[in-house]
């Protein structure tokens, strides 16, 4: 049986890493994920893990070392935020192209400029096309649980993809909460020992990794990489269910909260879903048919599942914690409305950009979204294409 203890988000992530006991961690610390690397380095120094910890001089080197260690056949983990992720960019694509199940904790933080250390999703949204699976946590318990599941999801033979386990900077990374921490034995048994496929260090079976791949075969290789994402979607569901069977907390691609008979549904990712639950529950007490759709898996994007969950609503709002400069709306809005269109749902949908650089999101802000949606449902069309929450204008 696990034990309920109070931990800070970053401590909970480091604890999960200690329990998973990866072969290699190569990292370069950055706010607000610093404490993950700091705590894990302490575990290494204290002999509490068998991990080979590689202290590197940049995030580009960190992800390069992770890639090399994974190709060699190791189970590999790392943590970063914002500008650190940006510096890894080149290698992010190579890790997914070589189908290496590297696990990265991304503590979401605003990308510069100007310099800002606080939460938004500009880092994660920017990495949406890199080929990494992305899970977003609502609270510290989920951040801990997601990291453990990330290992199993990424390592499944039909998946073999890197996974980003995302949690909101400061809002979760520095939030002190009670969570169920499972025993080391139970976690290790649940994630299972790692068996690399075609490791480079299998010198009896020589392999080539990352060769020149021009117009003769590159396209076919990209096409075959695309084949990994539908199984990854199934793996998120299957491992979420298996996690629930063993530990009692089941997870899926998304979570529907009071959506069954809801007229007005708000979609969000990350810690905002917590505040949103309180707002939705409060509106329900007032007789408003409000609901929340929490998106846990952003990549692979569960388009059909989202369209299914939203079918029957009269008005929808998509909350984006990132801007997509030059686009007509935020990144999540584009994906959600595209899903609705593709699967034949014609529902008026508002977009709100909020929380950039850590700007606080208040219950009143979220209540105002539902007030807008009441109007949208009446009019049958969005109030305005893009709104902003908590912005001084």
């Amino acid at each position, binding site marked *: 049986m696990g034990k309920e203890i*109070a931990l800070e988000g970053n401590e909970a992530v480091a604890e999960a890493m200690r329990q998973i006991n990866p072969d290699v961690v190569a990292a370069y610390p950055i*706010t607000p994920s610093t404490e993950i690397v700091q705590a894990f380095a302490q575990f290494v120094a204290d002999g509490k893990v068998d991990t080979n910890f590689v202290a590197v001089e940049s995030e580009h080197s960190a992800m390069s070392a992770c890639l090399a260690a994974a190709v060699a056949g190791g189970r590999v983990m790392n943590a970063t935020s914002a500008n650190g992720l940006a510096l890894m960019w080149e290698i992010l694509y190579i890790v997914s192209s070589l189908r290496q199940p590297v696990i990265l904790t991304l503590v979401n933080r605003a990308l510069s400029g100007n310099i800002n250390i606080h939460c938004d999703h500009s880092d994660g949204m920017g990495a949406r096309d890199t080929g990494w699976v992305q899970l977003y946590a609502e609270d510290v318990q989920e951040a801990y649980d997601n990291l453990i599941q990330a290992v199993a999801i990424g390592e499944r033979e039909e998946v073999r993809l890197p996974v980003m386990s995302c949690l909101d900077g400061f*809002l979760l990374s520095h*939030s*002190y909460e009670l969570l169920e921490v499972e025993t080391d034995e139970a976690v290790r048994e649940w994630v299972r020992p790692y068996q690399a496929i075609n490791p480079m260090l299998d010198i009896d079976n020589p392999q080539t990794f990352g060769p020149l791949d021009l117009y003769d075969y590159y396209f076919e290789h990209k096409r075959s990489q695309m084949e990994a994402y539908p199984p990854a979607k199934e793996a998120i569901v299957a491992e979420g269910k298996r996690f629930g069977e063993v530990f009692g907390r089941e997870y899926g691609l998304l979570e529907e909260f009071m959506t069954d008979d809801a007229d007005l549904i708000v979609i969000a990712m990350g*810690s905002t879903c*917590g505040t949103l639950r309180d707002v939705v529950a409060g509106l329900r007490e007032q007789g408003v048919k409000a609901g929340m759709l929490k998106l846990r898996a952003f990549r692979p994007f569960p388009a059909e599942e989202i369209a299914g969950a939203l079918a029957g609503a009269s008005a929808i709002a998509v909350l984006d914690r990132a801007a997509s400069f030059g686009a007509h709306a935020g990144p999540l809005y584009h994906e959600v409305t595209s899903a609705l269109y593709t699967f034949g749902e014609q529902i008026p949908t508002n977009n709100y950009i909020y929380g950039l650089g850590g700007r*606080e999101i208040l219950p009143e802000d979220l209540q105002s979204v539902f007030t807008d949606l009441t109007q949208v449902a009446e009019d049958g069309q969005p109030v305005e294409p893009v709104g902003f929450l908590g912005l001084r204008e």
Partner: protein
Amino acid sequence: MAQLTEVRFHGRGGQGAKTAGYILAVAAAEEGWRINAFPEYGAERRGAPMKSYVRISDEPIRLRSSVKSPDVVGVLDDTLLATENVTDGMGEGAVLVVNTDQSADEIRAQLGNPNVKVFVVNATQVAMDTIGRPIPNTPMLGAMAKATDIAGVEALKHAVDQRLGGKLSQAAIEANYAALERAYEEVTS
């Protein structure tokens, strides 16, 4: 309706406002409550004003926004009274505990809000005498144990041990216990 107690600490970077929130939360959890504690940082620098928050409830806490209407406020540095509105959002009967060498009446005279209950303790002096360093957070918690019913001294001691046990020597832990106890005795209103 859920029972909810909201706490706000005002301090300066390095005074331990964040840790004070964590220790208070652990102590409340030990007494059976659901808890959430989190700091509000600017740029994480020593000496800069910062706040930390604690929510304590009989139901799971899902709200993520900062505490706007605190039931209890702890001020770790009385120079903040001149620059921060420490009683912001405090309702009738809310409790304010200030680390200061001034009297409760002197503090009351500086506040814009006459409805709060003011408690004072010289937590910095207590910290110097017991721990040997001017870190007022644990003595402030001792004072808050007397001024509020959030968590008692024994629960706070366990929380200090749980939160700082791995980081401090046993002697330093004992010094923190002494700081808690002495501030509990010395706080006045």
